[in-house]
């Protein structure tokens, strides 16, 4: 059973530590991967730390918007 938690309840500095643990980083505003802005898999726009979600599937970090979330479900099914 997958557990769902709201990232909004986690302080920004802790989100950044979590990102580092997952192989990402942040400049405090955007999620970074290899020192470059990490792009949302579906919208291809930079993901902001204050609006990110972390979903299963090789650790997918997306922007929290209907297009990205629906596209994720379309690719991976209703996994959450």
């Amino acid at each position, binding site marked *: 059973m997958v557990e769902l938690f709201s*990232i909004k309840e986690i302080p920004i500095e802790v989100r950044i530590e979590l990102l580092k643990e997952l192989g990402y980083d942040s400049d405090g505003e955007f999620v970074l991967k290899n020192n470059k802005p990490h792009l949302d898999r579906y919208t291809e726009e930079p993901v902001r730390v204050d609006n990110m979600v972390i979903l299963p599937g090789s650790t997918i970090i997306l922007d929290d918007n209907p297009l990205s979330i*629906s596209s994720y479900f379309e690719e991976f099914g209703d996994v959450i």
Partner: protein
Amino acid sequence: MSSDNATDDDLIREATKGALDWASEKGKSLIKNLAEKIRNKDLVFIGDRDTIERAKQQRHKSEFTFFKQIITNTDSRNLFQMGLTLRSLQRDNKEAEMKNLKTKIKNKFDHNGLHFAYFVQNGLFSKYLGIVGINEYETIEQLRACPSSI
């Protein structure tokens, strides 16, 4: 407040209430555990719960269930769901969310994609299917093979 027997769930809840020092050894250990759970697909961090629930609702609507039998193209399926989502946001008077979503649709799929989403949002797609005579096709396969009619 935290005990040595506290589970990660307990610790997260404690932490979100400000009762856990994330810089402490216990906090650092929790972050490592959370990352491990995420990698194992046991834990998900969502943003707005409404976004998740609304996306799921559109996927289970009869219109989409029918549409996905005809169309296998992923972009078209996503656009169809965006049309249903726009309709849902409109019904709930979520103007800011609608505006934001329209921008994202246009950036990703250009104006043609946005127009298709409007076509679905307004319910015209379903009416159009009726007009083109869906009853002329014996099977879904025949309908699927005739994209010009959709």
